[in-house]
């Protein structure tokens, strides 16, 4: 029987990852994510897992990718500067199809920025930070309970799609404490590590109908080759234009064909809304309060709260844009996801950016004021 607990977002994230089967953590200390490493250091050895503090951020992801190939479900956690350093190997994981979850508890950047202040400035880096064409899955929870649930989902998606998954836990959600009731462990769906199709002629990178390969863990007798070079179904490098094209297409398509299923979002008051806030992460919390206050004044406001940031919820935004006058996008950055909203809206509705980048979180009043202005027919800002 699950009990109510007062938990921090970072703590819920660590527990969610463990509940989903993570048994290996490697990382490097960085504010505001360090609690995740500290909790893993304490919890993992007691449940047959391994924690290791590495010499730098790059080693922090390299070590988990090695551990993933040797059979463990793996996690690392960082913040902006460390996330930048990890980018090359996030691409390695995408190409070599290694399941791994990278938590980025976002803070104000660029550079060292404001280390303990909240921001959502890594939204685009999560999508495009590593070089070359690659798909990306990134989730951004808005509550402590959802920090747990999204960590479970992130681990499951990493395993199911054999891909790196980014958990964007902004500093608000990471450091916030809330009363939560965690799900009963028996009720948590856990995606198991894919097993290789054994038998002669096994090809580690041959994909099935879901376009995901069944790559054997090291030490299981398959003697596979894993490389960051473009490779064919055998896993060995190939310089062929066709192999290159097919590989890059399959990497994208394996996520694309599951896009609707992995697009998690919530709608509030969308039935009658004329002005719709599109928000994510900690910002969605104050946006929600701001929407409620606006509705009390008779403004037809609503909200779409995105939990899946990447792949972007194109269909959801496109359909919403057809029904409303305005899409208002508050973000703790200079304006990032607003461009995706604008693209998906396709000119059907006005898309207004409401950026904030001064270390302070939005207040509900700021959101309400922006909605009032829209309702009066004016632009915000």
């Amino acid at each position: 029987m699950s009990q109510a607990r007062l938990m921090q977002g970072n703590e819920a994230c660590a527990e969610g990852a463990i509940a989903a089967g993570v048994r290996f953590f490697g990382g490097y200390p960085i504010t505001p994510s360090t609690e995740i490493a500290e909790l893993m250091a304490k919890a993992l050895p007691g449940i047959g897992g391994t924690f290791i503090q590495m010499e730098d951020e790059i080693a922090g992801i390299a070590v988990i990718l090695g551990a993933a190939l040797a059979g463990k479900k793996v996690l690392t956690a960082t913040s902006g500067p460390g996330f930048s350093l990890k980018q090359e190997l996030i691409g390695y994981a995408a190409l070599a199809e290694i399941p791994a979850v990278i938590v980025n508890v976002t803070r104000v950047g660029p550079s060292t920025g404001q280390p303990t202040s909240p921001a959502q400035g890594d939204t685009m880096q999560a999508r495009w930070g590593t070089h070359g064409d690659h798909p990306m899955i990134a989730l951004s929870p808005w509550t402590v309970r959802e920090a747990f649930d999204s960590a479970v989902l992130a681990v499951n998606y990493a395993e199911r799609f054999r891909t790196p998954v980014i958990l964007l836990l902004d500093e608000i959600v990471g450091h916030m404490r809330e009363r939560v009731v965690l799900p009963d462990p028996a009720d948590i769906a856990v995606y198991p590590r894919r097993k290789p199709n054994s038998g002669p002629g096994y090809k580690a990178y041959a994909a099935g109908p879901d376009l995901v390969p069944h790559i054997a863990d090291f030490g299981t007798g398959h003697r596979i080759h894993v490389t960051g070079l473009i490779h064919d179904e055998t896993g060995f490098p190939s310089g062929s234009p066709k192999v290159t094209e097919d590989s890059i297409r399959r990497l994208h398509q394996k996520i694309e064909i599951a896009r609707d299923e992995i697009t998690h979002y919530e709608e509030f008051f969308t039935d009658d809304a004329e002005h719709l806030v599109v928000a994510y992460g900690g910002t969605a919390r104050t946006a929600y309060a701001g929407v409620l206050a606006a509705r009390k004044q008779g403004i037809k406001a609503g909200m779409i709260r995105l939990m899946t940031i990447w792949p972007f919820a194109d269909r959801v935004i496109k359909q919403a844009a057809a029904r409303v006058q305005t899409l208002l996008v508050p973000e703790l950055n200079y304006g990032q996801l607003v461009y995706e909203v604008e693209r998906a809206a396709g000119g059907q509705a006005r898309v207004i950016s409401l950026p904030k980048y001064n270390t302070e979180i939005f207040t509900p009043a700021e959101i309400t004021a922006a909605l009032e202005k829209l309702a009066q027919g004016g632009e915000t800002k």
Partner: protein
Amino acid sequence: MRDHEKYFRMGRLPHIWCPGCGNGIVMKALTQAALKLGLDQNKTVIVSGIGCSSRASGYLDFDTLHTAHGRAIPFATGVKLANPELKVIVITGDGDCTAIGGNHFIHGARRNVDLTVILFNNNIYGMTGGQASPLTPVNKKATTAPYGTVDRPFDPCELAKAAGATYIARSTAYHVNQLVELIAGGIENNGFSLIEAITQCPISYGRRNKMGDAAAMLKWMSQNGVPLAAYQKLSDEQKGDKFPTGVLHKSSFGEYSDEYAHIIDMAGEES
């Protein structure tokens, strides 16, 4: 088929290395050491970085992991700690290990995870066409040092010793039998082992520095590689270009995954 050839993916050969390159000699020495120890191909993982020597992983019939530039040691650390029953051997070059991967090299040695690092030292970045590395001697020419290198090289064996490696050895592509023994010794050591294998790059290093062809470079190794005990007896003047070979250092310290097993016991008792 010769016995050591079972450790090769024969279908992946021929290799990509230039005529006269010494990497094949070092790679073969690894397979001969594997044969000598009877290494289980299904329980041994070869991890490499990026560069000429790091392409060896693709030719060897084990689970093999060709990682990113400089990162072989932390990837290998993850493999070993995730499944300590696996033997993990790292193949790396002088640029890969001591420049971009230098920090990982130091900390790998410090942690004493049971990894055997075979450092193919050809004193140059070969894959990119002959740029100076941290192991290029001073006043040698490279494409990025057309007037000669200014900065000094360091000694990776001394560095590994200072950082805590528990088995350190050096040999050359000329001293093949010794190299096989030293690699085998490193694999047998339960801890972080470094075997520096000096190898020739006649195309991108030797030619530019008037060191002659591959045979001449091997001859230079035969004349300058001196067993440690004999080397220590040389005067500074006699030492010149000479370098010590054989087992250079051995020490005893708990292996990381063995030590972590104690942590697991402690945590288990507490919970």
